[in-house]
Protein backbone atom coordinates (compact mmCIF):
# COMPACT_ATOMS: atom_id res chain seq x y z
CA UNK A 1 0.00 0.00 0.00
CA UNK A 2 1.46 3.32 -1.07
CA UNK A 3 2.14 5.81 1.67
CA UNK A 4 0.11 9.01 1.93
CA UNK A 5 2.23 11.98 3.04
CA UNK A 6 0.96 14.04 5.95
CA UNK A 7 -0.43 17.50 5.31
CA UNK A 8 -1.14 19.13 1.97
CA UNK A 9 1.26 19.86 -0.91
CA UNK A 10 3.50 22.92 -0.50
CA UNK A 11 1.44 25.22 -2.76
CA UNK A 12 -1.59 24.95 -0.46
CA UNK A 13 0.57 26.86 2.08
CA UNK A 14 -0.83 25.07 5.11
CA UNK A 15 2.16 22.83 5.84
CA UNK A 16 3.90 23.36 9.14
CA UNK A 17 7.05 21.83 10.58
CA UNK A 18 4.87 19.27 12.37
CA UNK A 19 3.83 17.78 9.01
CA UNK A 20 7.48 16.97 8.39
CA UNK A 21 7.76 15.21 11.73
CA UNK A 22 8.88 18.20 13.76
CA UNK A 23 7.82 18.89 17.33
CA UNK A 24 9.03 21.41 19.87
CA UNK A 25 9.26 18.44 22.27
CA UNK A 26 11.38 16.36 19.87
CA UNK A 27 14.21 14.53 21.57
CA UNK A 28 16.62 11.71 20.94
CA UNK A 29 15.51 8.29 22.15
CA UNK A 30 16.68 7.79 25.73
CA UNK A 31 18.06 11.36 25.49
CA UNK A 32 21.08 10.02 23.67
CA UNK A 33 22.57 12.01 20.76
CA UNK A 34 23.97 10.62 17.53
CA UNK A 35 25.29 7.08 18.01
CA UNK A 36 27.72 7.63 15.15
CA UNK A 37 27.83 11.19 13.81
CA UNK A 38 28.75 9.97 10.34
CA UNK A 39 25.74 7.70 9.93
CA UNK A 40 23.03 9.36 12.01
CA UNK A 41 20.70 12.35 12.03
CA UNK A 42 20.08 13.56 15.57
CA UNK A 43 16.94 15.27 16.87
CA UNK A 44 18.56 18.72 16.83
CA UNK A 45 19.58 18.40 13.18
CA UNK A 46 16.25 16.90 12.20
CA UNK A 47 14.43 19.78 13.91
CA UNK A 48 16.45 22.40 12.04
CA UNK A 49 15.76 20.59 8.76
CA UNK A 50 11.97 20.49 9.16
CA UNK A 51 11.73 24.06 10.46
CA UNK A 52 13.74 25.42 7.52
CA UNK A 53 11.80 23.32 5.06
CA UNK A 54 8.50 24.65 6.41
CA UNK A 55 9.87 28.20 6.16
CA UNK A 56 10.92 28.00 2.51
CA UNK A 57 7.78 26.06 1.55
CA UNK A 58 5.71 29.02 2.70
CA UNK A 59 7.42 31.60 0.50
CA UNK A 60 8.67 29.67 -2.53
CA UNK A 61 6.85 30.66 -5.75
CA UNK A 62 4.52 28.07 -7.24
CA UNK A 63 5.41 29.01 -10.78
CA UNK A 64 8.15 30.89 -12.63
CA UNK A 65 7.57 31.30 -16.36
CA UNK A 66 9.19 33.08 -19.28
CA UNK A 67 6.66 34.05 -21.92
CA UNK A 68 6.96 35.59 -25.39
CA UNK A 69 3.98 37.46 -26.85
CA UNK A 70 3.37 36.79 -30.56
CA UNK A 71 1.94 40.02 -31.97
CA UNK A 72 3.46 40.37 -35.46
CA UNK A 73 1.49 37.38 -36.66
CA UNK A 74 -1.07 37.31 -33.86
CA UNK A 75 -0.99 33.97 -32.11
CA UNK A 76 -1.05 32.52 -28.63
CA UNK A 77 2.02 33.46 -26.58
CA UNK A 78 4.92 31.05 -26.44
CA UNK A 79 5.77 29.72 -22.98
CA UNK A 80 9.52 29.49 -23.35
CA UNK A 81 10.26 28.10 -19.91
CA UNK A 82 8.04 26.99 -17.10
CA UNK A 83 9.07 25.86 -13.65
CA UNK A 84 6.25 24.73 -11.38
CA UNK A 85 6.39 23.15 -7.95
CA UNK A 86 5.04 20.08 -9.71
CA UNK A 87 7.60 19.95 -12.51
CA UNK A 88 9.87 21.82 -14.89
CA UNK A 89 9.36 22.30 -18.61
CA UNK A 90 12.60 23.30 -20.33
CA UNK A 91 11.31 23.17 -23.90
CA UNK A 92 8.89 25.82 -25.10
CA UNK A 93 5.23 25.27 -25.89
CA UNK A 94 2.44 27.22 -27.52
CA UNK A 95 0.18 28.80 -24.91
CA UNK A 96 -2.94 27.33 -26.53
CA UNK A 97 -1.45 23.81 -26.57
CA UNK A 98 -0.15 23.49 -23.03
CA UNK A 99 1.21 20.09 -22.03
CA UNK A 100 -0.74 18.29 -19.32
CA UNK A 101 -0.12 19.82 -15.92
CA UNK A 102 1.21 23.15 -17.25
CA UNK A 103 -0.64 26.48 -17.47
CA UNK A 104 -2.07 27.75 -20.73
CA UNK A 105 -1.53 31.24 -22.17
CA UNK A 106 -3.65 33.34 -24.52
CA UNK A 107 -3.17 36.58 -26.48
CA UNK A 108 -5.43 39.53 -25.62
CA UNK A 109 -3.75 42.24 -27.65
CA UNK A 110 -0.34 43.70 -28.40
CA UNK A 111 1.86 43.01 -25.36
CA UNK A 112 -1.08 41.71 -23.38
CA UNK A 113 -1.38 38.05 -22.42
CA UNK A 114 -3.34 35.92 -20.03
CA UNK A 115 -2.04 32.88 -18.18
CA UNK A 116 -4.50 30.41 -16.70
CA UNK A 117 -3.74 27.91 -13.97
CA UNK A 118 -5.71 24.81 -13.01
CA UNK A 119 -7.61 24.93 -9.74
CA UNK A 120 -5.64 22.02 -8.33
CA UNK A 121 -2.38 20.19 -8.93
CA UNK A 122 -1.08 16.78 -7.91
CA UNK A 123 2.22 16.05 -6.17
CA UNK A 124 4.61 13.09 -6.63
CA UNK A 125 2.55 10.95 -4.26
CA UNK A 126 -0.70 11.59 -6.09
CA UNK A 127 -1.98 14.00 -3.46
CA UNK A 128 -4.08 16.79 -4.92
CA UNK A 129 -3.88 20.32 -3.55
CA UNK A 130 -5.98 23.33 -4.45
CA UNK A 131 -4.20 26.23 -6.06
CA UNK A 132 -5.40 29.81 -6.38
CA UNK A 133 -2.95 32.49 -7.52
CA UNK A 134 -2.58 35.06 -4.75
CA UNK A 135 0.65 36.86 -5.57
CA UNK A 136 2.23 37.66 -8.92
CA UNK A 137 5.25 39.59 -10.09
CA UNK A 138 6.24 40.23 -13.68
CA UNK A 139 9.30 41.81 -15.23
CA UNK A 140 9.50 42.74 -18.91
CA UNK A 141 12.68 41.92 -20.84
CA UNK A 142 13.51 45.11 -22.69
CA UNK A 143 16.61 47.14 -23.36
CA UNK A 144 14.89 50.33 -22.23
CA UNK A 145 12.43 51.41 -19.57
CA UNK A 146 9.36 49.26 -19.33
CA UNK A 147 7.03 47.63 -16.90
CA UNK A 148 4.92 44.53 -16.80
CA UNK A 149 1.83 44.79 -14.63
CA UNK A 150 -0.36 41.91 -13.51
CA UNK A 151 -4.01 41.57 -12.60
CA UNK A 152 -5.16 38.41 -10.84
CA UNK A 153 -8.72 37.30 -11.46
CA UNK A 154 -9.55 33.85 -10.16
CA UNK A 155 -7.31 31.34 -11.89
CA UNK A 156 -6.32 33.76 -14.65
CA UNK A 157 -3.64 36.42 -14.67
CA UNK A 158 -3.49 39.25 -17.19
CA UNK A 159 -0.05 40.62 -17.90
CA UNK A 160 0.46 43.86 -19.77
CA UNK A 161 3.91 45.02 -20.88
CA UNK A 162 4.19 48.76 -21.33
CA UNK A 163 7.01 50.94 -22.66
CA UNK A 164 8.14 53.75 -20.38
CA UNK A 165 9.03 55.92 -23.35
CA UNK A 166 5.69 55.76 -25.13
CA UNK A 167 3.29 54.52 -22.47
CA UNK A 168 2.08 52.05 -25.05
CA UNK A 169 1.97 48.28 -25.00
CA UNK A 170 5.13 46.56 -26.18
CA UNK A 171 4.54 44.35 -29.20
CA UNK A 172 6.17 40.92 -29.06
CA UNK A 173 7.06 41.51 -25.42
CA UNK A 174 8.94 38.89 -23.49
CA UNK A 175 8.48 38.78 -19.73
CA UNK A 176 9.18 36.65 -16.67
CA UNK A 177 6.23 35.87 -14.45
CA UNK A 178 6.44 34.63 -10.88
CA UNK A 179 3.26 33.36 -9.25
CA UNK A 180 2.59 32.33 -5.67
Amino acid at each position, binding site marked *: MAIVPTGAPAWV*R*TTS*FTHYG*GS*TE*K*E*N*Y*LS*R*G*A*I*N*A*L*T*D*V*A*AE*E*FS*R*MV*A*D*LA*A*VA*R*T*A*PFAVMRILCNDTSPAAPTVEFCSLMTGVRLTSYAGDAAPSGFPSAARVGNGIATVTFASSYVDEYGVSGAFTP*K*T*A*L*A*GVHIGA*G*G*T*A*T*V*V*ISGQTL*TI*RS*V*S*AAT*GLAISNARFTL*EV*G
Partner: protein
Amino acid sequence: MFGALGGVLPLRLGGTATNGWTAAQHARVAADLVAVGRTTPIATFSFTKVGAAVTITDYRGRNGTGLAYAPTPSSIGNGHARFTWSLPGWENESGDLQPVVITGARLSAVFNGTDHISPGITWSGVVVDTYTESHGASGNGLVDVGGTVRIWGTVGDSARRAIGDYAGDPNKRDSTTEGTTPYADGILRDLQAQRGSAYSTKTGTLVDCENLALARFLAGVGPRNAEKYRANMFPGTSDERLPYWEKFLAVPFAADEPKWQRRQKLAAHYPVSEGPKIEVIRARCTALLGDVFVDVTTSAGADLANPPTLTFWPGINPGPADYDLGGGCWASERDHYFVQVQQPAGMTDGEFLQLVNVQLFRMLDDLLPATATFSWGIGGGFFLDISRLDFTGMTPS
Protein backbone atom coordinates in the same frame (compact mmCIF):
# COMPACT_ATOMS: atom_id res chain seq x y z
CA MET B 1 14.37 1.35 9.31
CA PHE B 2 12.02 -0.90 11.19
CA GLY B 3 8.96 1.09 12.24
CA ALA B 4 8.52 1.12 15.97
CA LEU B 5 11.82 -0.68 16.48
CA GLY B 6 14.12 1.66 14.62
CA GLY B 7 12.08 4.74 13.79
CA VAL B 8 13.39 6.82 16.63
CA LEU B 9 15.87 9.63 16.72
CA PRO B 10 18.70 9.65 16.06
CA LEU B 11 17.85 8.28 12.62
CA ARG B 12 20.27 5.64 11.42
CA LEU B 13 20.87 6.17 7.71
CA GLY B 14 20.60 3.21 5.37
CA GLY B 15 17.95 0.69 4.37
CA THR B 16 16.23 0.41 1.04
CA ALA B 17 14.19 2.71 -1.19
CA THR B 18 10.99 1.53 0.45
CA ASN B 19 11.92 1.35 4.12
CA GLY B 20 14.97 3.50 4.67
CA TRP B 21 16.74 6.77 4.09
CA THR B 22 20.22 6.35 2.68
CA ALA B 23 23.19 8.59 3.33
CA ALA B 24 23.20 9.63 -0.34
CA GLN B 25 19.52 10.58 -0.22
CA HIS B 26 19.98 12.46 3.02
CA ALA B 27 22.94 14.32 1.49
CA ARG B 28 20.79 15.44 -1.43
CA VAL B 29 18.06 16.70 0.93
CA ALA B 30 20.61 18.60 3.03
CA ALA B 31 22.33 20.20 0.02
CA ASP B 32 19.08 21.14 -1.73
CA LEU B 33 17.57 22.56 1.42
CA VAL B 34 20.59 24.81 1.87
CA ALA B 35 20.34 25.80 -1.80
CA VAL B 36 16.66 26.79 -1.81
CA GLY B 37 17.03 28.45 1.58
CA ARG B 38 19.56 30.86 0.09
CA THR B 39 17.36 32.09 -2.75
CA THR B 40 13.81 31.74 -1.52
CA PRO B 41 12.22 35.02 -0.40
CA ILE B 42 11.47 35.53 3.28
CA ALA B 43 8.05 37.03 2.59
CA THR B 44 5.57 37.66 -0.21
CA PHE B 45 2.35 39.60 0.07
CA SER B 46 -0.26 41.26 -2.09
CA PHE B 47 -2.02 44.50 -1.29
CA THR B 48 -4.57 46.95 -2.59
CA LYS B 49 -4.52 50.71 -2.12
CA VAL B 50 -7.56 52.92 -2.57
CA GLY B 51 -6.99 56.36 -1.14
CA ALA B 52 -5.95 56.02 2.48
CA ALA B 53 -7.10 52.41 2.67
CA VAL B 54 -4.22 49.99 2.28
CA THR B 55 -5.21 46.34 2.64
CA ILE B 56 -3.02 43.27 2.60
CA THR B 57 -4.98 40.57 0.82
CA ASP B 58 -2.57 37.67 1.14
CA TYR B 59 0.57 37.03 3.15
CA ARG B 60 3.14 34.19 3.14
CA GLY B 61 6.28 34.61 5.19
CA ARG B 62 8.90 32.43 6.78
CA ASN B 63 7.20 33.43 10.01
CA GLY B 64 3.85 31.99 8.90
CA THR B 65 1.03 32.07 6.39
CA GLY B 66 -1.94 34.40 6.88
CA LEU B 67 -2.65 37.98 7.82
CA ALA B 68 -1.78 37.38 11.47
CA TYR B 69 1.89 37.31 10.44
CA ALA B 70 1.68 40.24 8.01
CA PRO B 71 3.08 43.73 8.59
CA THR B 72 0.72 46.59 9.42
CA PRO B 73 -0.19 48.53 6.27
CA SER B 74 -0.65 52.28 6.18
CA SER B 75 -0.99 55.03 3.62
CA ILE B 76 1.64 57.75 3.55
CA GLY B 77 0.16 59.55 0.58
CA ASN B 78 -0.99 59.19 -2.96
CA GLY B 79 0.69 56.08 -4.43
CA HIS B 80 2.83 55.65 -1.34
CA ALA B 81 2.11 52.79 1.09
CA ARG B 82 4.06 51.63 4.13
CA PHE B 83 4.26 48.17 5.68
CA THR B 84 5.62 47.85 9.21
CA TRP B 85 6.29 44.77 11.30
CA SER B 86 5.74 45.56 14.96
CA LEU B 87 8.89 43.78 16.09
CA PRO B 88 12.42 43.83 14.63
CA GLY B 89 12.30 40.04 14.44
CA TRP B 90 10.05 37.06 13.89
CA GLU B 91 9.27 34.29 16.34
CA ASN B 92 10.43 30.82 15.41
CA GLU B 93 8.62 27.58 16.28
CA SER B 94 9.90 27.73 19.83
CA GLY B 95 8.76 31.31 20.34
CA ASP B 96 12.27 32.77 20.17
CA LEU B 97 12.59 36.14 18.45
CA GLN B 98 14.83 35.89 15.37
CA PRO B 99 16.16 39.20 14.01
CA VAL B 100 15.08 39.97 10.46
CA VAL B 101 17.39 41.74 8.02
CA ILE B 102 15.89 42.72 4.68
CA THR B 103 18.45 42.50 1.88
CA GLY B 104 16.28 42.89 -1.20
CA ALA B 105 12.74 43.73 -2.23
CA ARG B 106 10.67 43.91 -5.35
CA LEU B 107 7.28 45.37 -6.18
CA SER B 108 5.09 44.44 -9.12
CA ALA B 109 2.12 46.74 -9.60
CA VAL B 110 -1.34 45.80 -10.82
CA PHE B 111 -2.62 47.09 -14.14
CA ASN B 112 -4.11 50.59 -14.09
CA GLY B 113 -5.91 51.31 -17.34
CA THR B 114 -3.60 52.27 -20.15
CA ASP B 115 -0.98 54.03 -18.07
CA HIS B 116 2.57 52.93 -17.62
CA ILE B 117 3.14 52.24 -13.91
CA SER B 118 6.66 52.63 -12.51
CA PRO B 119 6.95 50.71 -9.27
CA GLY B 120 9.45 51.71 -6.61
CA ILE B 121 10.34 50.18 -3.27
CA THR B 122 12.55 51.11 -0.33
CA TRP B 123 13.04 49.73 3.13
CA SER B 124 14.60 50.63 6.44
CA GLY B 125 14.85 48.00 9.12
CA VAL B 126 11.55 46.13 9.00
CA VAL B 127 9.62 49.01 7.42
CA VAL B 128 8.95 48.70 3.69
CA ASP B 129 7.69 51.57 1.54
CA THR B 130 6.14 51.13 -1.90
CA TYR B 131 5.62 53.77 -4.59
CA THR B 132 3.57 53.53 -7.76
CA GLU B 133 3.92 56.27 -10.31
CA SER B 134 1.79 56.67 -13.40
CA HIS B 135 2.93 57.89 -16.82
CA GLY B 136 0.36 58.17 -19.57
CA ALA B 137 -3.14 59.24 -20.38
CA SER B 138 -4.03 60.23 -16.82
CA GLY B 139 -0.87 62.27 -16.45
CA ASN B 140 2.30 61.73 -14.49
CA GLY B 141 2.52 61.31 -10.74
CA LEU B 142 1.97 58.94 -7.86
CA VAL B 143 -1.26 56.96 -8.16
CA ASP B 144 -2.99 54.48 -5.91
CA VAL B 145 -2.68 50.96 -7.25
CA GLY B 146 -1.98 47.70 -5.49
CA GLY B 147 0.63 45.09 -6.18
CA THR B 148 2.68 42.20 -4.94
CA VAL B 149 5.74 42.68 -2.76
CA ARG B 150 8.47 40.11 -2.49
CA ILE B 151 11.17 40.41 0.17
CA TRP B 152 14.52 38.66 0.48
CA GLY B 153 16.72 38.66 3.53
CA THR B 154 17.84 36.75 6.56
CA VAL B 155 15.92 35.50 9.56
CA GLY B 156 18.09 34.75 12.56
CA ASP B 157 21.22 32.96 11.39
CA SER B 158 19.65 31.68 8.18
CA ALA B 159 22.43 33.16 6.03
CA ARG B 160 24.95 30.93 7.78
CA ARG B 161 23.01 27.75 7.15
CA ALA B 162 25.22 24.87 5.99
CA ILE B 163 24.68 21.18 5.31
CA GLY B 164 26.15 20.43 8.72
CA ASP B 165 23.09 22.02 10.35
CA TYR B 166 21.05 19.23 8.79
CA ALA B 167 23.58 16.54 9.76
CA GLY B 168 25.17 16.74 6.32
CA ASP B 169 28.82 15.78 5.96
CA PRO B 170 30.84 14.85 2.83
CA ASN B 171 31.87 11.66 4.61
CA LYS B 172 28.34 10.65 5.61
CA ARG B 173 27.64 6.97 4.99
CA ASP B 174 25.02 4.35 5.69
CA SER B 175 25.10 2.77 9.12
CA THR B 176 26.68 -0.65 8.84
CA THR B 177 25.11 -1.76 12.10
CA GLU B 178 21.52 -0.52 12.02
CA GLY B 179 21.14 0.86 8.50
CA THR B 180 19.21 -2.20 7.34
CA THR B 181 17.98 -3.88 10.51
CA PRO B 182 17.91 -2.20 13.90
CA TYR B 183 19.46 -3.90 16.93
CA ALA B 184 16.03 -4.05 18.52
CA ASP B 185 14.78 -6.37 15.78
CA GLY B 186 17.16 -9.16 16.75
CA ILE B 187 16.41 -8.67 20.44
CA LEU B 188 12.65 -8.78 19.77
CA ARG B 189 13.03 -12.11 17.93
CA ASP B 190 15.05 -13.44 20.87
CA LEU B 191 12.42 -12.31 23.38
CA GLN B 192 9.63 -13.92 21.38
CA ALA B 193 11.58 -17.16 21.10
CA GLN B 194 12.43 -17.17 24.81
CA ARG B 195 8.82 -16.61 25.83
CA GLY B 196 7.69 -19.52 23.74
CA SER B 197 4.40 -20.33 22.07
CA ALA B 198 2.29 -19.54 25.15
CA TYR B 199 2.79 -15.84 24.48
CA SER B 200 1.35 -14.06 21.49
CA THR B 201 3.61 -12.62 18.79
CA LYS B 202 0.72 -10.88 17.08
CA THR B 203 1.28 -7.17 16.38
CA GLY B 204 -0.64 -4.79 18.63
CA THR B 205 -1.26 -7.17 21.51
CA LEU B 206 -0.26 -6.35 25.06
CA VAL B 207 2.54 -8.92 24.96
CA ASP B 208 3.80 -7.50 21.68
CA CYS B 209 3.86 -3.98 23.11
CA GLU B 210 5.78 -5.21 26.13
CA ASN B 211 8.25 -7.10 23.95
CA LEU B 212 8.75 -4.07 21.72
CA ALA B 213 9.36 -1.71 24.62
CA LEU B 214 11.77 -4.16 26.20
CA ALA B 215 13.59 -4.76 22.89
CA ARG B 216 14.03 -1.05 22.28
CA PHE B 217 15.25 -0.46 25.79
CA LEU B 218 17.74 -3.34 25.66
CA ALA B 219 18.97 -2.22 22.23
CA GLY B 220 19.48 1.29 23.60
CA VAL B 221 21.45 0.34 26.69
CA GLY B 222 23.22 -2.60 25.06
CA PRO B 223 24.59 -2.61 21.52
CA ARG B 224 23.77 1.04 20.80
CA ASN B 225 25.71 2.13 23.85
CA ALA B 226 28.64 -0.02 22.83
CA GLU B 227 28.59 1.46 19.34
CA LYS B 228 28.41 4.93 20.80
CA TYR B 229 31.51 4.28 22.89
CA ARG B 230 33.33 3.09 19.75
CA ALA B 231 32.24 6.16 17.78
CA ASN B 232 33.38 8.49 20.54
CA MET B 233 36.87 7.02 20.29
CA PHE B 234 37.45 9.00 17.07
CA PRO B 235 36.90 12.74 16.68
CA GLY B 236 35.23 12.42 13.27
CA THR B 237 32.40 10.29 14.68
CA SER B 238 32.34 11.64 18.21
CA ASP B 239 29.44 13.34 19.94
CA GLU B 240 29.60 13.65 23.73
CA ARG B 241 33.38 13.27 23.71
CA LEU B 242 34.08 16.31 21.52
CA PRO B 243 35.31 18.39 24.50
CA TYR B 244 37.80 15.63 25.31
CA TRP B 245 39.15 15.65 21.73
CA GLU B 246 39.37 19.42 21.74
CA LYS B 247 41.55 19.26 24.82
CA PHE B 248 43.56 16.28 23.62
CA LEU B 249 44.31 17.74 20.20
CA ALA B 250 44.62 21.30 21.56
CA VAL B 251 42.08 22.59 19.06
CA PRO B 252 40.30 25.73 20.25
CA PHE B 253 36.64 26.37 19.49
CA ALA B 254 34.19 29.22 19.84
CA ALA B 255 31.47 29.01 22.48
CA ASP B 256 28.62 29.16 19.95
CA GLU B 257 30.15 26.80 17.42
CA PRO B 258 27.82 23.99 16.35
CA LYS B 259 28.84 20.41 16.97
CA TRP B 260 29.29 19.56 13.30
CA GLN B 261 31.83 22.36 12.85
CA ARG B 262 33.79 21.31 15.92
CA ARG B 263 33.75 17.70 14.67
CA GLN B 264 34.94 18.76 11.21
CA LYS B 265 37.89 20.67 12.62
CA LEU B 266 38.88 17.90 14.97
CA ALA B 267 38.74 15.32 12.19
CA ALA B 268 41.07 17.50 10.09
CA HIS B 269 43.57 17.80 12.94
CA TYR B 270 43.46 14.12 13.91
CA PRO B 271 45.02 12.02 11.09
CA VAL B 272 48.60 10.85 11.40
CA SER B 273 50.52 12.86 8.84
CA GLU B 274 51.52 11.26 5.56
CA GLY B 275 54.22 13.86 5.25
CA PRO B 276 54.05 17.44 4.00
CA LYS B 277 53.45 16.57 0.34
CA ILE B 278 51.49 19.17 -1.59
CA GLU B 279 48.63 16.70 -2.16
CA VAL B 280 48.42 16.02 1.57
CA ILE B 281 48.53 19.72 2.41
CA ARG B 282 45.71 20.38 -0.07
CA ALA B 283 43.61 17.52 1.31
CA ARG B 284 44.07 18.60 4.92
CA CYS B 285 43.27 22.23 4.09
CA THR B 286 40.15 21.14 2.21
CA ALA B 287 38.97 19.06 5.16
CA LEU B 288 39.57 21.87 7.63
CA LEU B 289 38.41 24.89 5.65
CA GLY B 290 35.60 23.49 3.51
CA ASP B 291 34.08 26.29 1.40
CA VAL B 292 36.74 28.71 2.62
CA PHE B 293 39.54 26.83 0.87
CA VAL B 294 40.52 27.76 -2.69
CA ASP B 295 44.03 26.43 -3.33
CA VAL B 296 47.55 25.93 -1.99
CA THR B 297 50.36 27.20 -4.16
CA THR B 298 54.12 27.33 -4.08
CA SER B 299 55.90 29.91 -6.14
CA ALA B 300 59.57 29.35 -6.91
CA GLY B 301 59.99 26.41 -9.26
CA ALA B 302 61.58 23.01 -8.76
CA ASP B 303 65.15 23.42 -10.04
CA LEU B 304 66.98 21.84 -7.13
CA ALA B 305 70.45 22.76 -8.46
CA ASN B 306 69.62 26.47 -8.46
CA PRO B 307 67.70 27.54 -5.38
CA PRO B 308 65.86 30.87 -5.62
CA THR B 309 67.68 33.95 -4.41
CA LEU B 310 66.05 34.15 -1.04
CA THR B 311 67.24 30.76 0.13
CA PHE B 312 69.06 30.69 3.43
CA TRP B 313 70.86 27.37 3.81
CA PRO B 314 73.84 27.77 6.13
CA GLY B 315 77.08 26.56 4.56
CA ILE B 316 75.49 25.52 1.24
CA ASN B 317 73.55 28.55 0.03
CA PRO B 318 73.85 31.32 2.64
CA GLY B 319 71.58 33.71 0.70
CA PRO B 320 71.92 37.51 0.50
CA ALA B 321 73.79 38.72 3.57
CA ASP B 322 71.67 41.88 3.75
CA TYR B 323 68.54 39.85 4.33
CA ASP B 324 69.98 37.18 6.58
CA LEU B 325 67.74 36.63 9.55
CA GLY B 326 70.72 35.51 11.61
CA GLY B 327 71.13 32.63 13.97
CA GLY B 328 71.75 30.09 11.19
CA CYS B 329 68.15 30.37 10.02
CA TRP B 330 66.95 27.88 7.37
CA ALA B 331 64.34 29.34 5.05
CA SER B 332 63.54 29.58 1.37
CA GLU B 333 60.90 31.24 -0.75
CA ARG B 334 60.66 27.86 -2.48
CA ASP B 335 59.54 26.31 0.78
CA HIS B 336 56.74 28.79 1.27
CA TYR B 337 53.13 27.65 1.05
CA PHE B 338 50.47 30.18 0.15
CA VAL B 339 46.92 29.15 1.06
CA GLN B 340 44.39 31.00 -1.02
CA VAL B 341 41.07 31.35 0.79
CA GLN B 342 37.73 33.08 0.41
CA GLN B 343 35.19 34.33 2.91
CA PRO B 344 31.82 32.80 1.99
CA ALA B 345 28.71 34.98 2.16
CA GLY B 346 27.18 34.67 5.58
CA MET B 347 30.42 33.85 7.42
CA THR B 348 31.26 36.53 9.93
CA ASP B 349 34.71 38.13 10.11
CA GLY B 350 35.19 36.56 13.53
CA GLU B 351 34.46 33.04 12.28
CA PHE B 352 36.62 33.52 9.22
CA LEU B 353 39.61 34.87 11.11
CA GLN B 354 39.33 32.19 13.78
CA LEU B 355 39.44 29.58 11.04
CA VAL B 356 42.44 30.95 9.12
CA ASN B 357 44.44 32.55 11.92
CA VAL B 358 43.91 29.90 14.59
CA GLN B 359 42.78 26.61 13.08
CA LEU B 360 44.75 26.79 9.82
CA PHE B 361 47.85 28.15 11.51
CA ARG B 362 47.88 25.38 14.10
CA MET B 363 47.36 22.63 11.54
CA LEU B 364 50.08 23.85 9.15
CA ASP B 365 52.45 24.48 12.02
CA ASP B 366 52.11 20.81 13.00
CA LEU B 367 52.14 19.48 9.44
CA LEU B 368 54.98 21.37 7.79
CA PRO B 369 58.69 20.96 8.52
CA ALA B 370 60.44 23.62 10.58
CA THR B 371 62.10 25.11 7.48
CA ALA B 372 58.79 25.79 5.77
CA THR B 373 56.87 29.03 6.04
CA PHE B 374 53.28 29.69 5.15
CA SER B 375 50.71 32.43 4.81
CA TRP B 376 47.14 32.84 3.69
CA GLY B 377 45.41 35.42 1.57
CA ILE B 378 42.28 36.22 -0.37
CA GLY B 379 42.74 36.28 -4.13
CA GLY B 380 45.98 35.67 -6.05
CA GLY B 381 47.84 38.97 -5.55
CA PHE B 382 51.33 39.01 -4.13
CA PHE B 383 52.51 38.07 -0.72
CA LEU B 384 55.22 39.38 1.51
CA ASP B 385 56.88 37.22 4.16
CA ILE B 386 59.77 35.83 2.11
CA SER B 387 60.16 38.31 -0.72
CA ARG B 388 62.36 41.26 -1.56
CA LEU B 389 59.42 43.58 -1.04
CA ASP B 390 59.03 42.36 2.50
CA PHE B 391 62.75 42.52 3.25
CA THR B 392 63.43 45.91 1.71
CA GLY B 393 60.21 47.80 1.07
CA MET B 394 58.65 47.02 4.42
CA THR B 395 61.80 47.39 6.53
CA PRO B 396 62.53 50.78 8.13
CA SER B 397 65.80 52.23 6.87
